[in-house]
């Protein structure tokens, strides 16, 4: 290994502007966990297969284990920590995972929640098959997926109903 190389970067993490000096060999997952304490970002496979490390970058889901930290300069990142409100209350999609028993060991849960959050943020209605496709980059070895899809579908229905009553 040659001399360590660092890059200075600033980005938005869960709505706040932050900066860091990062080793260019680091993944975004490592930086978020080690430098910023974002331990919702799980490392399951570290080769882009399982989705446990999913975060939103500029609103879209990425596997942070295969995204170099050096590339995050100037971008916006959201993790599960960013879904909690100022009083510490969890969001609707997190609550739905609890209500639907969509969590067993819980290791895959933050990744699923971020993929689901991307889908829900579009404000559109999706079929169960479309939800499945949107979650197909996330693996769960415990639940058998049905309750996870239920949680996403219920949250989608609730958000769309709320949008209708606002009109």
């Amino acid at each position, binding site marked *: 290994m040659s001399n360590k*190389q660092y890059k200075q970067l600033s980005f938005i993490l869960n709505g706040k502007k932050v900066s860091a000096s990062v080793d260019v060999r680091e*993944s975004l997952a490592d930086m978020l966990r080690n430098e910023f304490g974002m331990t919702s970002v799980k490392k399951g496979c570290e*080769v882009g297969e399982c989705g446990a490390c999913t975060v939103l970058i500029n609103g879209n*889901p990425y596997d942070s284990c295969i995204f170099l930290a050096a590339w995050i300069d100037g971008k916006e990142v959201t993790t599960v920590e960013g879904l909690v409100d100022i009083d510490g209350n969890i969001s609707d999609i997190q609550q739905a995972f609890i209500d639907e028993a969509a969590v067993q060991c819980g290791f895959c849960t933050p990744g699923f929640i971020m993929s689901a959050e991307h889908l829900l943020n579009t404000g559109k209605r999706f079929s169960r098959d479309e939800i499945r496709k949107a979650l197909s*980059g996330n693996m769960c070895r415990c639940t058998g997926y049905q309750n996870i899809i239920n949680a996403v579908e219920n949250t989608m229905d609730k958000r769309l109903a709320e949008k209708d009553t606002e009109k």
Partner: protein
Amino acid sequence: MYDINHFYEATSVEHAVQLRVENPEAHIISGGSDILIGIRAGDLAGCDLISIYMLDELRGVSFHDDGTIRIGALTSFTNLAEDPIIREHLAVLGEAADTVGGPQIRNIGTIGGNTCNGVTSADTASTLLAFDAVMELTGPKGIRLVPLTEFYLGAKKVDLRPDEIATAVLIRKDHYKGYHGVYFKYAMRDAMDIATSACSVNVKLSDDKKTIQDARISYGVAGPIPLRARSAEKIVKGKLVSADTVEEFAAGALEDVNPRTSWRATKEFRLHLQREMARRCFVESIRRAGGSV
């Protein structure tokens, strides 16, 4: 931590080329969804990287004056699947891109990486081949255009010089105008799986929809590199649309493929798939072009 020896970050295409000239041993990294996996696996451990990921000028789809469609090398699979120009003129390419991995991989993986990796199973490669796509390579002396049919040299080997980077994929107007196509990916799972074999067909019918004016067919995982089945193309050119023509096309396709047995499937099973995919893609392409068998 990735085992990277030195990391060079390009700030422009010119800078990327200059970094290539100065560091001929270094690998280009675009989205990294092949390269970083290779570093983890050990094959590429300790390598030098030239990152071009931050070059937004290489993202997106546009038209040249002559109607050629230009796809920037860093355009992601998601961008391809959602782009309005692709949806209107190269719909099958967007559909092929949409079969890659899962949403996260489609956000990070690029068309430049999917062609320059020289991999036979690359989902956009066979479709691009069936469009006679051309690689735009930029080096110190300027741009070199290489047809995709000549770009593949062997398994994981492409005609990219050590001082070049791929800057775009080009598709000429006469290669897409009037063509309708279908991509078929046969894999064990509906997502997060690479093709056991795959087939892409483009068909152009006569105005009365009765005659095959032109057909192009290519395969992934039918040989060490993505390949065209020219025998099938020759057989049906100018023929009437009919069930017999479909059978001749499917049989003809087998003359050019050369699959092997791997842990995913046997040679015999792949041959069976390749004939069946040719048949189905051809029939569906004819239907999309307004004809019927």
